[in-house]
């Protein structure tokens, strides 16, 4: 990605971290997958209730070497409501990122996309670095509600300040949002 892209990445990173998201960037798919694998191990993902990791259908999966994940039991690729409700980690691929607010945007019409990013405690979002857009008006010209029935924008972790105005993370949605940018994803850039 060009220089303008790096500036946008830095802006995205600072805005997203400002709302307690964790932002990583890797040059290659292999590096990104390494990171995710280690992350799942560290979080003790296992084949038991409340320890699953659910990975929603995502184009990048076909580009990644899934066998590297096979050492971790509990990683599920067929996402159901029941599994998602018992998952610790949900993983999905995101279509766009907005630099000026640190926002992720996804066509979430397929319900599994919503299940993995709403019900789990940790949401890992994979984004192609080249898909960072400057702002919302730019996004609106790229994604049409006529075609995408459920457009989801996600900025930081789920939060509330409803008790005594004290900011508290993780009410109904994930309490951690881990964003993994991958430079060589999709290969069109």
């Amino acid at each position: 990605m060009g220089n303008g892209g790096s500036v946008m990445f830095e802006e995205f990173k600072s805005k997203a971290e400002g709302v307690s998201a964790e932002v990583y960037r890797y040059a290659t798919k292999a590096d990104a997958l390494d990171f995710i694998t280690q992350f799942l191990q560290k979080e003790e993902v296992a084949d038991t209730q409340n320890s699953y990791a659910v990975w929603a259908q995502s184009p990048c999966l076909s580009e990644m070497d899934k066998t590297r994940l096979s050492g971790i039991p509990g990683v599920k690729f067929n996402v159901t409501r029941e599994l998602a409700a018992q998952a610790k980690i949900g993983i999905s691929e995101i279509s766009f990122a907005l630099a000026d607010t640190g926002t992720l945007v996804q066509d979430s019409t397929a319900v599994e996309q919503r299940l993995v990013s709403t019900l789990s405690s940790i949401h890992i979002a994979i984004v192609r670095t080249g898909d960072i857009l400057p702002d919302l008006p730019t996004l609106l010209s790229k994604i049409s509600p006529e075609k995408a029935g459920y457009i989801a924008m996600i900025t930081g972790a789920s939060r509330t300040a409803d008790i005594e105005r004290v900011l508290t993370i993780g009410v109904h949605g994930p309490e951690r949002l881990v964003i993994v940018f991958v430079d060589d994803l999709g290969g069109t850039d």
Partner: protein
Amino acid sequence: MKSKFKQSIHRALHDPNLTGALGKFSEAYRVNRVKAYEGIDFEALRSRIAEIKSHAASHLDSLSELFAKNAEAHGAKVFRTNDPLKVKEYILNLAREKGVKSVVKSKSMATEEIHLNAYLEKAGISVGETDLGEWIIQLAGQTPSHMVMPAIHMTKEEVSDLFSKEINERLSSDIPRLVKVARKELRAKFLNAGMGISGANIAIAETGSLVLMTNEGNARLVTTLPNIHVAVVGIEKLVADYQDIAPIIKALPKSATAQLITSYVSIITGPSPNTDGSAKELHIILMDNRRTEMANDPKFKQALQCIRCASCLNVCPVYRLVGGHVFGSVYTGGIGTILTAWFDELKKSEDIQGLCIQCGNCKEVCPGKIDIPELILELRRRLVVDQGMPLVQKAIFGVVNNRKLFHSMLRTASLAAKPFTTGKFIRHLPMFLADLTDNRSLPAIAAEPFRDRFRKISQPKLKEKVAFYAGCLIDFAYPEMGENLVKTLNKAGIEVVFPEEQTCCGAPARYNGAYEVAAQNAEDNIKALLAEEVKYVVSACPTCTVALQHEFTSTFESLGQSEWMPRAKALAAKAIDFSTLVKRLVDEGRLSFKEGERLGKITYHDSCHLKRTLKVHEEPRELLRKAGYELTEMFECDMCCGMGGSYSMKLPEISAPILQKKLKNIKDTAAPVVAMDCPGCVMQIRGGIDRDGASIMVKHTVEILSEQLK
């Protein structure tokens, strides 16, 4: 005001949790909001929003139709109704038909407005609010006290009591722990509910889409897990085009909670798949409930530009003291008063409209560019037309309307009050001013009003003439301010004329809804002030200047009177406030200050009308600096002092704590002098300082500058 209402104010003011939480929040909010809007042209942004929403308000019917057509084309069912009862029946019938036993809801003011929960629960359907604040007040059996933060009035201890009872387990008041409990309890409700009910922040006609914004993520669950989704949407949420949502999404979180964006924004168009593979049943109810009627009202149409951010509550000096429950309804604060008058009935706003002190803070921050204070005055006017005015008030304005009688009464007051005067302050004032002295000392009515003193001032005969509009306070309480003004202008080579027939500016009548009286005042003043050819009509009272510049025309307009309009406009063009005129004269080199003066620290209090209607705030500061003062800004320098004309008489219990905050902020600067441009503020703050005993001089800018000019 009804005693029940007064009691609710009393309760709120004496609830330390409430005033503590709200006060802290509102002080922090003002600072954080500015940060959130850093680098953004707020005026341009809100003009765009006002344009979008105003366009929508003008086309409610055609946009509703277009929305319905497009949403239905995508597979949603759309039900349009004006009647809140029909909304409730529709949802109940649907629930019964589908065998729904339990419902989860994400926050929706529209459903609060029609009391949907009670209706469904009465029919045996369990309803779970899932927004944390809404769930708390649901458990407590209360109504929201704030549109964005419904439970802001409750402490963590109260919340822990409620939750403990709900789950039968003694909980501590640790907030993260309480939030975890809510997550767990509500997660089960989400997974078991047969129907999800939401509102919508925006409805897009062009695409038939709904936009939902939340921080907690509950709207995403409400619209994903149950197989049926019902959205109740007030038709003021409609916008014409998809691109219209960008400015609203940009402004709403910044104005609501000083966030750049909410954690989640969802744009839903048609049914999406359910978790069992079926297609969701999506029902969208477009609810009118008098919104079309509002759109057809030339005055109130602009209230439909509201995006429900509640920033008008957050900056309100009254709301931060009393909270939302005194409003006695679902919608609270400034915009809430207006919405209550429409969605409930005008009579319901009778008491609560009186809470507005007309400081204009809300108008300045409203992202929908709604003139909330003006609309509240319009409510007052209509209430007076509808129900007449209380007898005592009527008598007062009968007097104010008759200049000779009014002025002779004020003269009599000066004599009658003599025995009660201590030094420069008075403990008791006659008749309608009697209640004024509870919380602060008041100035004695001058033994000799300015109009009499003026004749004794010997002015040089000069070619350039300016008319002085004194206003009641300078004329009858602070004539020395008038004398200082004459002295100042003479130094610039200007002769001051004082048209004797001038009378009250009509502000007190107008702010009490007595527009006919205000119109008579306007007419009398126009005649008097335009009688002689002058370059300017200057006033040292911002409220009076606002009357001359803006309100005479708007009063005539409200009453549909056009006869005096051209002359009112001619007068408006000549009217100018003291500091702006002096700044102009200094810039032109016609006035200059003594050189090398080092006068020490001073702090400046911005008067509401000067800062927010006349947009004057730098001028007096620059003049004071040039005079030789070192300016130290106080915290919230432009927050109301609590005077608000007759407000301090009607609601002294609210006016007093507002004044106390102001006094504290003044004292915290350690400046020995506080300056301001309004004799009303001088009266309030000087009286407060006198009671307080602090040795701080409270002065009108005119008193300070006239001493320092060459």
